[in-house]
């Protein structure tokens, strides 16, 4: 009877493709919008992820997310170093400074000042030059996206000439020389990332009494990051978070204070509703139009259970195909545009599972409507 069910479904090409189209669109929209949302949210804490060595981040207690800089006095670094269980603690400067471009325009850059001695917190992947080259006079390392995009010069033909080792920039009226190109996570605001030493960063930055943005801390063996964070907070009065905690704090800030989740949520909901409307209604109509055949099957001895299995198999087929086509198309979309444009796209398995659940709900809804009709169907209607 499964064969009969599948032939009934796929034989009516118009309805079959209609249902499939609805589910594919729903699956595509849900996956694509959720992936862009997750991609964007990942960018908000990309810098924390990239700074891999530190176990704990110490900062002003009022800091709400990674870009919310509330500078500390330099003496705080010494206080943190004095906490028992600290293996090492290094300063980190993080700020937005303006780079003057050749054409006279200004470009805001995300400037990171690393501990002069250790360069801890530097980029993991160097494409040109070495991290140690930051110790050269006026040395800076810029990220690949910035080098090829917003910090690129314009040639006579108007085409961009990517910044490379040896190129110079003017950062807040200070000369800076590119000594390396690195690859880092894209920032939320897509600003170029400029690495330099802590001391040089503080000279680039406008004169302020306090310039220490964060303190990165490593725990001694045998101490968990959470335990160390508690000790730092207790002894210094600073806020101290483990890396995952700081990532969560950052992402929660964006979730709470920006309209991003609502906007993407609406798009996901629309995908769900469109899918439900198209697939649900088409599937229901398909069943209605086939009721007389279901009645004939019932008269000929098909039990309700057999007919239910037929409807469920039909729903599973279109659901499975729609899910596969939709998520496949979304993955292809992300793969194409994510590598060629600024598109933020991240497709973890949880999104695939979520989309699968949504499609299952749509199919269940569509099938339940149909099953209700089929179960209540009186076989005697075949003689009417």
């Amino acid at each position, binding site marked *: *009877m499964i064969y*009969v069910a599948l032939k009934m479904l796929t034989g009516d090409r118009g309805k079959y493709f209609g249902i499939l189209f609805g589910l594919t669109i729903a699956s595509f929209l849900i996956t694509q919008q959720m992936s862009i949302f997750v991609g964007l949210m990942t960018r908000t804490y990309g810098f924390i992820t990239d700074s891999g060595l530190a176990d704990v981040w110490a900062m002003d207690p009022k800091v709400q997310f990674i870009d919310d800089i509330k500078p500390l006095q330099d003496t705080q670094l010494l206080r943190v170093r004095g906490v028992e269980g600290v293996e090492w603690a290094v300063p980190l400067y993080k700020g937005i400074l303006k780079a003057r471009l050749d054409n006279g325009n200004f470009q805001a850059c995300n400037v990171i000042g690393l501990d002069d001695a250790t360069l801890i917190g530097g980029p993991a992947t160097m494409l040109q030059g070495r991290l140690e080259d930051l110790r050269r006079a006026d040395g800076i390392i810029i990220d690949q996206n910035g080098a090829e995009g917003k910090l690129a010069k314009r040639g006579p033909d108007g085409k961009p000439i990517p910044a490379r080792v040896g190129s110079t920039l003017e950062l807040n009226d200070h000369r800076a020389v590119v000594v390396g190109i690195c690859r880092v996570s894209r920032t939320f605001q897509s600003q170029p990332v400029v690495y330099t030493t802590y001391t040089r960063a503080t000279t680039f930055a406008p004169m302020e009494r306090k310039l220490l943005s964060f303190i990165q801390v490593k725990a001694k063996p045998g101490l968990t990051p959470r335990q160390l964070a508690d000790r730092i907070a207790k002894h210094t009065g600073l806020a101290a978070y483990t890396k995952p905690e700081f990532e969560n704090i950052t992402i929660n800030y964006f979730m709470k204070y920006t309209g991003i989740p609502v906007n993407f949520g609406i798009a996901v909901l629309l995908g769900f509703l469109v899918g439900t409307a198209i697939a649900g209604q088409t599937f229901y109509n398909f069943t209605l139009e086939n009721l007389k055949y279901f009645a004939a099957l019932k008269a000929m001895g*098909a039990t309700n259970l057999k007919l239910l299995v037929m409807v469920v198999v039909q729903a599973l087929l279109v659901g499975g195909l729609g899910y596969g086509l939709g998520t496949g198309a979304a993955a292809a979309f992300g793969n194409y545009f994510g590598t060629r444009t600024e598109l933020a796209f991240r497709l973890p398995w949880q999104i695939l599972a979520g989309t699968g659940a949504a499609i299952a709900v749509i199919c269940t809804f569509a099938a339940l409507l149909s099953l209700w009709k089929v179960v209540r169907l009186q076989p005697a209607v*075949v003689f009417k």
Partner: protein
Amino acid sequence: MTPVAAGLAVELHGVTKTYGSGDAKVTALRGVDLDVRAGELLMLVGPSGCGKTTLISVIAGILDQDDGECFVFGENLNGMRDRDRVNYRGRNIGFVFQSFNLIPTLTAADNVAVPLLILGTPRREAIRRATEALDRVGIGDRGGSMPWELSGGQQQRVAIARSLVHRPRLIVCDEPTSALDHQTGHKVLELLREVALADGRSLIIVTHDARIFSFADRIAKMDDGRIVEVVTPSELK
């Protein structure tokens, strides 16, 4: 199993059936008594709304009567559990519908195989037997055709093959010639007599079509929910 008169396929005693309630109450069957013999072709005739379709629905086990008894090959269908009745129907009763009810997305052979598939026969075996059944009704070469590629007469032959394929003991037909022209209708009835009645099978045909009355062994005339007369074609006025 209830004792049943020897040689009877169907035995009805005082069968009543009412639809609706209150002012909308309609009595379709008013104490119908009727016997259908094994190997007999019985036609149920009468004006529209006289209860013919309700009666074959009760006999076929797809509608419960309100009162009275209906024995089909000695089994009281009304007393069976739903599941048992559905199974009994699937094994013992074949159907020929007025509008054929062939599933349009299945080939002729697939359509004929449906009753076997319902009974759990493997598809390959079901198709083999369906092809044999199509051979018996004279369209063995059209097994791969879709219903819409067949003429009305050919579609009704497919429907007849479908009603026979699982070798039921009783076939009920609802207006099998109403969608066919006179000549095709005659051929279909000849086929039904020749093929369907074989092996002691019984056949009940509901019809308005007086031109086919001559094919019946007996004719039960109905009016207002009652059997008013059972006659042979030669006795028909």
